[in-house]
């Protein structure tokens, strides 16, 4: 008898919980357009997910302040994926089953984005990732879009930077052992080998492993490289650079656009001085859309936008662009988004090709006197 009561109470609680979730959705009226965001808002990658949310909020607020799109206000429903593929899949399920949501931005990591893709594809819901640069992401279906150069584009360019511009021969690689890190490493190594460089060491680390890189650094130091490629995010890269300098290891460093953030310099200090990278976003770009974005982001959040914020800002504006072109539901959003051509984003002119990838012009940068400046050989 007692057990029956407990089961009943549990079911009642679940019903309340489920309907609680539901009521959140019914609150939006037909005067609104709902876009979902799946990004790591807590956990290890929270700082990146937060910059996504900040940038998208900014873009939607601007659009809504001008009366919305075709008289409709855009609302953002943000869900925290913690960059965990299991969470990302759950969120995908939630968005797909919520008929109000007509498009989704995210996820941050390629691993989490790839976990959601089959569900979004099945539900016919646009999944636009601002940062998933894994080549396989947009091959998951016809609803996957990305607003970033793939590692197939960035890797060879970085190899060219290291070998042709910096004249390095002995190159070591350290990378984060996840989907993104592996393709970043593979494409860079492929590029290096094509240009006749030698890979003298390759070391991986797991994202959950903590922040002690001394074992890896000691090992790489033994192979005596003249250039170290770091395939990781800016926080870990700053720490790797610092720990390398502490171990008296003064190798030159090179990395991907993921390093583009003031935080890299704040955390890394003198250790990241002279670090080389390529990037799709350069805040000193005089184009008005870039200056407007940098200024309004700075005013609203009190800090300069990172490259991740810029990618997400463009993603939000691409959705707005598609809505302006007449998208009203899931299918039309996909069709209008595919048709976007030469959109003047803060990360460059953006057009989707037939595989829903973008071709971004990447700039070679170097950290000089604590600032990112274009590299001039």
């Amino acid at each position: 008898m007692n057990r029956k009561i407990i089961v009943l109470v549990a079911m009642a609680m679940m019903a309340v919980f489920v309907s609680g979730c539901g009521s959140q959705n019914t609150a939006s009226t037909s005067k609104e357009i709902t876009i979902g965001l799946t990004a790591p808002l807590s956990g290890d990658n929270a700082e990146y997910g937060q910059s996504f949310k900040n940038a998208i909020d900014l873009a939607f607020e601007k659009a809504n302040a001008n009366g919305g799109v075709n008289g409709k206000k855009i609302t953002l429903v943000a869900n925290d994926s913690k960059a965990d593929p299991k969470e990302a899949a759950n969120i995908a399920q939630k968005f797909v089953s919520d008929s109000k949501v007509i498009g989704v931005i995210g996820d941050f990591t390629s691993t989490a984005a790839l976990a959601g893709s089959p569900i979004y594809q099945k539900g016919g819901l646009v999944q636009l990732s601002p940062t998933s640069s894994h080549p396989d992401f947009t091959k998951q279906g016809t609803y996957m879009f990305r607003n970033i150069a793939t590692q197939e584009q960035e890797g060879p360019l970085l190899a060219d930077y290291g070998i042709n511009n910096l004249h390095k021969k002995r190159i070591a690689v350290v990378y984060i052992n996840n989907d993104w890190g592996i393709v970043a490493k593979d494409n860079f190594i492929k590029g290096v080998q094509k240009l006749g460089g030698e890979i003298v060491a390759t070391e991986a680390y797991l994202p959950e492993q903590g922040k002690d890189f001394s074992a890896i650094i000691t090992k790489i130091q033994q192979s005596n490289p003249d250039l170290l490629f770091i395939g990781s995010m800016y926080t870990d890269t700053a720490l790797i650079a610092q720990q390398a300098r502490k171990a008296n290891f003064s190798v030159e460093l090179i990395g991907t656009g993921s390093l583009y953030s003031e935080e890299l310099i704040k955390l890394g200090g003198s250790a990241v001085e002279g670090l080389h990278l390529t990037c799709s976003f350069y805040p000193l770009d005089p184009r008005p859309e870039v200056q407007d974005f940098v200024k309004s982001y700075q005013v609203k959040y009190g800090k300069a936008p990172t490259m991740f914020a810029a990618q997400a800002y463009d993603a939000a504006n691409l959705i707005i662009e598609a809505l302006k072109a007449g998208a009203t539901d899931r299918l039309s959003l996909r069709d209008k988004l595919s048709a976007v051509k030469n959109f003047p984003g803060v990360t460059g002119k953006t057009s989707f090709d037939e595989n829903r990838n973008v071709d971004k012009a990447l700039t070679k940068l170097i950290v000089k006197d604590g600032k990112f400046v274009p590299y001039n050989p």
Partner: protein
Amino acid sequence: MTLFLQQVINGLAQGSIYALIGIGFALIFGVLGLVHFAHGEVYMIGAFLGFMLVSVFQLDIFSSLLLAMLGSALIGVVVEAIAFRPLRKAPDVAPMVCTLGLSVVLQNGAALLWGTDTKSIPDAIPNHIIPFLGAQISFQQVFIFTVTIILMLALQYVLHRSKIGRAIRATAQNKDAAALMGVNIDTVIAWTFAVGSALGGAAGVLVGVYYNAFYPMMGFMAGLKAFTATVLGGLTSVPGAVLGGLILGVAENLGAAYISSGYRDIFAFAILILVLLIKPSGLFGRGIQEKV
């Protein structure tokens, strides 16, 4: 050879941190027979307190370390009062689950309070490098070793020479008998949490200074590794936790160097499994005596 020596030095520095956190697990398990899953978060908060004291209040590293230890001790006492004391009569699983929840609350609380991004402080300790038989020891590593050794000697002194230390050891041996002898068990448990948390907080400050990174999630993996070190040492043994921590640190670094850096966590946990298979009570375990 140089590589070997260098990795041992790196491993000892890392192991000292595990040891300091592990002592807290061992002390608390000793008196309560329970695992304190939020102990890693106490370490994280200790690190952030150190960060605040150095960067905001501009204190030197020694005063910051002491004050952060004091702050962590207070937090430890509060944690005990919230998560353990009300559940003293409950089945063992209740307080443990409670600390699991508390660890999530503390992680996210720290994220709210200090933000999710990684914080750093300009070198709080000068970073000179001392050549040593071809390898190199940094001044910061020497600092970690020294502080760890001093804290352990102080702990031994407190446990074996002071009244509260004797009470802690008596409670760990037999709670009921200690209570009958006039030991106030609640006070002893609160003190145990204070001492264990102070050491955890010290580890947090040391790690923050060493790696120059403070972030809300830093307690999770460190706590897990330190707990492993404690199990390795026999769960209730303070010297065991210390030795376990050092073994773990060195094993991880050697494994990363000679086998593969991508699998470094495996070495730590593989050693744990081996020890448990060969000597289930751990290196310094008391042996499990079931009450009849």
